[in-house]
């Protein structure tokens, strides 16, 4: 006896969700089982996972192909330095503050760049990031073009023992990394997500169906900017040193992130996760090759884009129809083998 059901979950996703939750629990306990080196590595993966998921939400779902997200990473970093150098607060408090500031600044920025479309929008966001970089290079109290270091005393005030300090930063990274994925997942399952998917597929058609495109785009842009700013503050809490070129580095905070999303699979939740993991595997094994390593990355990106424009996850879904984090609805016949 078989009936038709409309459902979101798939047999795989019913297993994937609890497994993912278990994995997060296991990762949260990492300070008790991992060495500091492993903690650092997982933390860095989480930071890039967050940036990749957020950029995927912007470019893959909302159609906002921004190549200037490093504007908000750098801004977050500089908020951290302002808070630490001039207010003397616990640097962890700078993380939410960086999020709020980035959101506030993203509103007027959005008004400006949203006047542009497509390639013009992409270049516009890049220009905004350049403007940010040049502006911070003029602020001599934050080191200007020379850059500045976080005083050791402030790091010690956060937690006296090194293990505790590492653990705190790690948990913050884990929270932002998993938080970003969960945020994107829940957002896409909501009414906004439905609208976003419609915008992704056809902007004109979705507009004619009554979706207020500008408002949704603005909300997503500002939300992504806020989390990106928080990630920025955390990044420079680990780096201990900031300079305009490092803070607003397009290659570190935007190009690498785009690389991860594109090889993983743009417009899917799983894509950025796979792309991030693949990048770190490559880096762990090949980074010491110097220039050759960068050439391998480039060649790989070209190869994957040509062989599978939807990335590695696109290749998997088109062959098997698998989905770990389903956001769409499907018709399923129950009773048969699902």
């Amino acid at each position, binding site marked *: 006896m078989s009936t038709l059901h409309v459902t979101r979950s798939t047999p795989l996703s019913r297993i994937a969700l609890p497994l993912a939750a278990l994995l997060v629990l296991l990762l949260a306990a990492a300070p008790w089982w991992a060495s500091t080196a492993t903690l650092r590595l997982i933390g860095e993966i989480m930071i890039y996972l967050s940036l990749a998921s957020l950029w995927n939400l912007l470019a893959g779902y909302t159609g906002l192909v921004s190549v200037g997200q490093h504007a908000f990473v750098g801004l977050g970093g500089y908020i951290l330095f302002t808070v630490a150098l001039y207010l003397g607060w616990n640097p962890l408090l700078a993380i939410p503050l960086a999020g709020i500031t980035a959101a506030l600044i993203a509103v007027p920025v959005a008004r400006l760049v949203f006047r542009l479309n497509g390639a013009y929008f992409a270049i516009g966001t890049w220009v905004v990031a350049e403007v940010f970089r040049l502006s911070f290079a003029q602020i001599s109290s934050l080191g200007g*073009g020379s850059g*500045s270091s976080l005083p050791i005393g402030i790091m010690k005030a956060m937690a006296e023992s090194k293990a505790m300090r590492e653990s705190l930063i790690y948990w913050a990274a884990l929270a932002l990394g998993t938080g970003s994925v969960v945020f994107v997942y829940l957002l896409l399952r909501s009414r906004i997500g439905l609208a976003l998917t419609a915008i992704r597929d056809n902007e004109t058609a979705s507009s004619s169906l009554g979706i207020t495109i500008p408002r949704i785009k603005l909300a997503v842009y500002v939300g992504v900017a806020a989390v990106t700013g928080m990630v920025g503050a955390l990044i420079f809490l680990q780096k201990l*040193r900031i300079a305009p070129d490092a803070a607003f580095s397009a290659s570190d905070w935007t190009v690498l992130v785009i690389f991860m999303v594109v090889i993983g699979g743009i417009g899917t939740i799983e894509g950025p996760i796979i792309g991030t993991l693949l990048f770190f595997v490559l880096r762990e094994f090949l980074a010491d090759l110097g220039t050759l390593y960068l050439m391998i990355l480039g060649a790989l990106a070209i190869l994957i884009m040509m062989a599978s424009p939807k990335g590695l996850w696109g290749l998997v879904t088109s062959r098997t129809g698998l989905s770990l984090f389903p956001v769409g609805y499907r018709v399923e016949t129950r009773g048969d083998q699902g």
Partner: protein
Amino acid sequence: MSKIIMLNRRQILTGAGALLAAPALLRATRASAADATFKIGYVSPTTGPIAGFGEADGFILEGVRKAFAGLTNNGKPVQVEIIAKDSQSSSNRAAEVATELIEKDGVNLLLASATPDTANPVADQAELNEIPCITSIAPWQPYFFGRNGDPAKGFNWTYHFFWGLEDVIGNFISLWDKSGVAKKVGGLFPNDADGNAWGDPKLGFPGPLEKAGYALTDPGRFQLMNADFSSQIAAFKAAGVEIVTGVTIPPDFATFWSQAGQQGFKPKVVTVGKALLFPSVIESLGERGDGLSSEIWWSPSHPFSSSLTGESSRQIADGYTKTTGKPWTQPIGFNHALFEIAADVIKRAADLTDPKAVIDAVAATDLKTLVGPISWKGGPANPVKNVVRTPLVSGQWQKQGDKVELVITNNSQYPSIPVGGELKLLS
């Protein structure tokens, strides 16, 4: 009922406290199981825009690894492992590889070289993680003040050797004094760590130049990779500038110099820091590379030899040219000296497994190296606790046959380094 809840809560709190303390305990047991090799982490740029500084690293490391083979500490032979990492010319990557070296490789000593963008992030990580660290090839002011250093306190874990702004200012002024040209100087100071320090009214060029009777035209900080120097050139022309100075990256200087030629600006002396260090850069300027002048931190004619291999400056430079077919470069001396100090520290440290004993040995260094005497014990060469200034002279790129050679023309700051020729005017 409420009592039981109280008890539970307290138990939970103690439990949570113990749990939070657990990572520290785990780490302590891991650290005590230190292995027998002494590990040195070395960070330098071997790819990217400032790769020239790390160009000779392969050659240096090969020689150093051989010389490290027979090292002993407290009468016992020491296994030394050198792990070299590329900073990719980025301060982000330099901080990343420094933490990797500290956490993953568990290095006992960190060495880093070339520009504040490499030295500072590595030193910052070392200071926080309490790992002994020695750096070089960055003028000491951007290193020390760029890290928010307090001269009264200094740093505990990080030491540095290189010259400072006072040395380069003294050198340039005496070079110009002897040239006999009009005392009108134009400054090219970009908005980066070096440019801001050199152009700083208190620490940099403006004060000493005024005292020495020079008029400085400083059109203000410009961004790196500037495409248009017309306004600077116009300002220099208007002020009748005959001497151009500054501290730029090679591409910026090349742009400035070709535009100066196109716009008919002909200074008589051009003495620029950082841009004119490498023979490859001078060759890329063609005919117009001949006669430019620069600071010289190390050359084959420096009367110093390596405490590690016993070779003289000339022998090391010739060895490099013989092995690689390339002309010698100044960073060779300093990058080699980093390992000389490391070897000396390994010999003297009371206990190589104890970071405190290692850093005490660093602080007590008194060594004659390939780049001159190194000691942090508080002599006239120590402007602050963690810095030692090394000898600096200056000179000019001069055409000799079909290639250009860097010739020392001014040794006023350190007379025991011999001069090799006279300064010639550009026009």
